[in-house]
């Protein structure tokens, strides 16, 4: 199959970028979207042009490195799927496809489709953990966890930190990412001692990073490759407001 790709090209952080069109031929429906970019890059390289920079690593949908907005949708048209697992059988021969980086002030473009998601690490560093220094743990069975709590913690913990939620949010908010961690740790008995301070600190780090505020539009959960539910945001709100009320 043959496609026209219009890709955002930007030399570095400070450069101005623009969409550039490329025709790519000889593609197969069994290719993943990233393999199409590989084919394009191989061609650009041998022609002496600069290949398109994009983040990718595991190519099996779990590392969260890849991410691009494909025809206006983060990770492309297939639900619950990262760009690396999106296959070309979801496109038609002759399609024109727009490929853009995640757009957010807190995710500055580094080059082409590569963005800096360091803000996510800073949010986790601000409190997205349970303080359990190595060696201090009691026996794993010392504290049973009801299965429902363990399951809801797992559901939230499935987040891969790809940033699609931010890319899709009309407010440029990272609330789904932030709240997923708050909900994961807050659902477990081990997470209770730091529950309030964690939620507040992570929210402050989220806001400081320059992300927008959440208005519950649900665009984030619609594109989330792991289907993190919007309810996690309720858990964050609950913990933050609950703490504010209690501190009164």
């Amino acid at each position, binding site marked *: 199959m043959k496609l026209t790709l219009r890709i955002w090209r930007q030399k570095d952080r400070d450069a101005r970028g623009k969409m550039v069109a490329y025709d790519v031929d000889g593609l197969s429906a069994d290719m993943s979207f990233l393999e199409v970019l590989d084919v394009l890059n191989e061609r650009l390289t041998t022609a002496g042009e600069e290949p398109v920079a994009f983040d990718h690593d595991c190519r099996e949908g779990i590392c969260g490195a890849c991410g691009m907005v494909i025809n206006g949708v983060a990770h492309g048209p297939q639900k619950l799927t990262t760009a690396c697992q999106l296959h070309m059988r979801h496109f038609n021969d002759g399609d024109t496809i727009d490929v853009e980086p995640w757009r957010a*002030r807190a995710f500055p473009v580094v080059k082409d489709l590569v963005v800096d998601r*360091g803000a996510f690490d800073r949010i986790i560093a601000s409190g997205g953990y349970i303080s359990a220094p190595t060696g201090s743990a009691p026996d794993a069975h010392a504290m049973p966890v009801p299965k429902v709590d363990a399951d809801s913690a797992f559901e939230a913990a499935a987040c891969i930190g790809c940033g699609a939620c931010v890319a*899709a949010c009309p407010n*440029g908010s990272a609330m789904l990412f932030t709240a997923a961690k708050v909900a994961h740790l807050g659902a477990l008995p081990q997470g209770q001692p730091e529950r309030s301070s964690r939620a507040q*600190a992570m*929210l402050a780090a989220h806001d400081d990073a320059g992300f927008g505020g959440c208005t519950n*539009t649900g*665009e984030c959960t619609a594109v989330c490759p792991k289907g993190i539910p919007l309810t996690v945001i309720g858990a964050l709100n609950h913990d933050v407001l609950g703490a*504010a009320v209690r501190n009164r």
Partner: protein
Amino acid sequence: MVVSGTRDRAASTTKATTPTPGRKAVYRSTVGAKSVMAVTGLLLLAFLVAHMAGNLKIFFGAESFDHYAHWLRDIGAPVLPHYWYLWIQRGVLTAAVVGHAWAATALALRARRARPVRYAHRPKVQGSYAARTMRWGGVLILLFIVWHLLDLTVGTVNPVGNPATPYANVVAGFAPSRWPVTLFYTLAIIALGFHVRHGLFSALRTLGQRTAKGEQRARVAALGFAVLLVAGFLVVPFSVLVGLVG
């Protein structure tokens, strides 16, 4: 605030973001802004429900309706002098509208700053349209409120415009010849329905609704409320229009 720089350049600033934020910080946060939005929204919604219920008195005839309107001015009597309650309510509602609009503006400006470069390919709406029309819907509703106050409260744009005869004002206001007014009213109420549908769901979420089952219930409740309000508010002008009330 660190928005650029590779991780190691930013690392030294990470420590500074380890706060034990107090209550103030929460109110200044994005969650604080949307809590203001939620609380004021719920307040306005409560008013809307009462307002709608009161409107339906019109079906009991002019006397009943006008009596109801007069009674409103005497709520709280004899503790509160004549009109006092109404002015208190107006004060609270105005504060709620201002708070609601302030929070919306603050979040909208923040959203704009959060995405300085727009997408070349217009993003497809995957969530709900109700959620995506909150801001413009809100502005439309605000404009409508201004018109509505001038029409049926102050009476300056109403053909009758006599505060003593609300029934007559309504009947004259929605007379068939004034169909553009009725059309505007209808559109505004439908916009309000959309606004309430996402708004109520969103307010519950903001105030800590956090289970899947609760989410289902919140969605149903929000839709139910929206439909009820739209129907309750529209039945009056359409009854006037078709001559059921007159």
